[in-house]
């Protein structure tokens, strides 16, 4: 009988084929748009968080109790031998990454800027920020551009773009290829020539050897090249003077432009010497096994017990409060947009249901007259409307899926002026897609709620149906 009812519902659905298709299409496009938009929005948030976390804060940090509120070198703590063991004994902590971070004035020639000085353990930092991978590997210096233009195989359209991207730096070949609009087919011939002229050699920094890596934007501002010197002046531990001169060993291009504009990396011990801080640290970042929200909070709780108030444990949300609230606000505005979209679609669905109910009032009367119980009739009408919603939602999800899967492999990378605008706002000019997640399920829930609300009308008509009146309709 259920099968018969479903057959009846399915056939009823196609009685007015055009209307059903239009209604299902409206749900389809709403779901498609909502899913792709959510994927893009959540994916981009993910990228921004990842950039902020992995290039700077890490997922969890251990700090001296007052450091977060008052970031001075006086609020540091000694890196005692037992502490590392204490921290790594937690099941989610793989490695401790010690850091010493402070501020200084940086000068090169006549130019000065306030910078963030970060003392790092170069090898351990590979677990988290992977700073060495952010070293500039290619740069389109004026000389390099001239040399590339002189190569006979370089096509004119690439030569034009070379002018546009002169002085740009790259940490890998992909972005360079994208900027110069070189197809994968041509890349095999052209890229080796371009890379040969654009190669940019950096040196490494290591513990015990004075030397610095500076952000790419900062290096431009201060006019620094490899081998130049940077002078840092600041306030050291217990009001001592911190001053030092360091050779530039490398230039790093940080994904967050704000950090790129003011970062100076020094080897940890060199940095501690600069600030006269002995073995003290400002923070220990933790390399965690599972960086999911739940696992991170659980780890924080466990560590808080272990450290018993001696040191403070912060998670990435606390450390990136501004970014979290900015993205939360953006997320809410996105949700409001989707809400408005669904509201419009809901009225469309309701209109269809209203018409369908009015058109079939007489038929409802006949069915009840000849012996169909109202609840059975209601279940058939419910199935019809759910099928219509389901058609739209399944179609929408199916259509969105390949777009999202493609987008995950090929994030949208902005170029030219637009990219620069994003960078000026402090964001990496990349829009990523988020994989299949609960947001897919939410679309099902929203459409289901929409359908349930729309169902109220026909169900109320059916249960209050007066057969005699319906037969006269």
């Amino acid at each position: 009988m259920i099968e018969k009812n479903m057959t009846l519902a399915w056939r009823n659905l196609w009685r007015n084929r055009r209307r059903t298709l239009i209604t299902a299409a409206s749900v389809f496009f709403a779901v498609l748009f909502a899913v792709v938009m959510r994927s893009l929005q959540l994916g981009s948030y993910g990228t921004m968080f990842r950039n902020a976390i992995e290039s700077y804060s890490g997922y969890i940090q251990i700090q001296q109790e007052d450091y977060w509120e008052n970031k001075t070198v006086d609020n540091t703590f000694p890196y005692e031998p037992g502490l590392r063991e204490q921290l790594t004994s937690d099941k989610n902590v793989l490695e401790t990454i010690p850091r010493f971070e402070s501020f200084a004035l940086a000068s090169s020639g006549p130019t000065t800027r306030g910078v963030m000085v970060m003392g790092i353990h170069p090898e351990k930092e590979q677990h988290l920020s992977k700073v060495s991978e952010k070293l500039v590997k290619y740069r389109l210096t004026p000389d390099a551009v001239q040399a590339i233009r002189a190569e006979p195989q370089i096509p004119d359209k690439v030569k034009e773009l070379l002018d546009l991207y002169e002085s740009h730096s790259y940490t890998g070949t992909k972005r360079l290829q994208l900027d110069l609009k070189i197809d994968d087919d041509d890349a095999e011939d052209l890229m080796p020539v371009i890379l040969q002229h654009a190669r940019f050699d950096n040196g490494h920094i290591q513990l015990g050897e004075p030397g610095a890596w500076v952000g790419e934007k900062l290096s431009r501002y201060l006019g620094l090249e490899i081998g130049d010197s940077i002078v840092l002046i600041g306030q050291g531990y217990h009001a001592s003077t911190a001053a030092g001169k360091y050779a530039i060993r490398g230039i790093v291009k940080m994904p967050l432009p704000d950090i790129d504009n003011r970062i100076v990396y020094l080897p940890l011990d060199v940095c501690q010497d600069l600030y006269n801080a002995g073995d003290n640290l400002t923070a220990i970042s933790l390399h965690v096994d599972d960086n999911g929200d739940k696992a991170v909070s659980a780890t924080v709780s466990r560590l808080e017990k272990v450290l018993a108030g001696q040191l403070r444990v912060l998670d990435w949300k606390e450390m990136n409060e501004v970014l979290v609230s900015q993205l939360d606000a953006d997320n809410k505005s996105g949700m409001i947009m989707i809400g408005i979209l669904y509201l419009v679609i809901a009225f469309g669905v309701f209109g269809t249901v209203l018409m369908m109910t009015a058109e079939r009032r007489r038929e409802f009367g006949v069915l009840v007259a000849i012996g169909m119980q109202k609840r059975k009739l209601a279940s058939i009408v419910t199935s019809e409307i759910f099928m219509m919603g389901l058609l739209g939602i399944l179609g929408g999800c199916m259509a969105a899926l390949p777009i999202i899967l493609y987008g995950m492999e090929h994030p949208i990378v902005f170029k030219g002026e637009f990219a620069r605008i994003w960078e000026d706002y402090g964001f990496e000019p990349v829009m990523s897609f988020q994989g299949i997640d609960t947001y897919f399920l939410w679309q099902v829930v929203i459409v289901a709620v929409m359908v349930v609300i729309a169902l109220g009308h026909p169900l109320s008509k059916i249960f209050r149906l007066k057969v005699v009146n319906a037969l006269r309709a």
Partner: protein
Amino acid sequence: MKILEIKNVHKIYNSSEVQVHAVNGVNLDFEKGEFSAIVGPSGSGKTTLLNMIGGLDSPTEGEIRVDQTNLAGLKSSRLIDFRMRHIGFVFQSYNLIPVLTAKENVEFIMNLQKWNKRERDKRTYELLEAVGLKDRAHSRPSKLSGGQQQRIAVARALASKPKFVLADEPTANLDTKSSENLLNIMEELNREEGITFIFSTHDQRVMKKARRVITLEDGRVISDEWKKKNGSS
């Protein structure tokens, strides 16, 4: 054997300005196997009376008993169930379910009653044969003529072997030939299977075929005539 008793039935409609006494103190009994017509001018109360007999509407006063069951005593869902099992309906404008084939329309009530497939198929094809439309079993109503649709409606009404069939102006939308054909089929089913038919009609052909003609005027029975076997009153 009485299968239907109508005792002092009144139906009063109260509109904002006037009170309409659509059925006014009707008393009637129907025996099994009757082939009866309720006739009268428009507004005489035929359809209202038929609706009350079928349990589609309730009397303001009085009692309608089908096989000793007082319809007024049944709750809404029990009444629907009662209609499904005991009363067949044929409507003026056929009212077949447009998305079902002729066969599916006929077996619709048997499905509601959860008959098994073998019995359902047997009964459906018997009825389709009886109304002469076995070859159109898989056609949708939109592919059938008005006369054919009304014959399917008769087959549907008979599907669950009801105690009687109520037919409200069954020939009103049919041409002469289709009307004649339909009446012959119903007469044959009445004669051979003993099915009770009660019509409301204006149609002289139906009146001629009916063995009992009840005339209503202003909601009252003004005559109740039985015909002799040769057709005269």
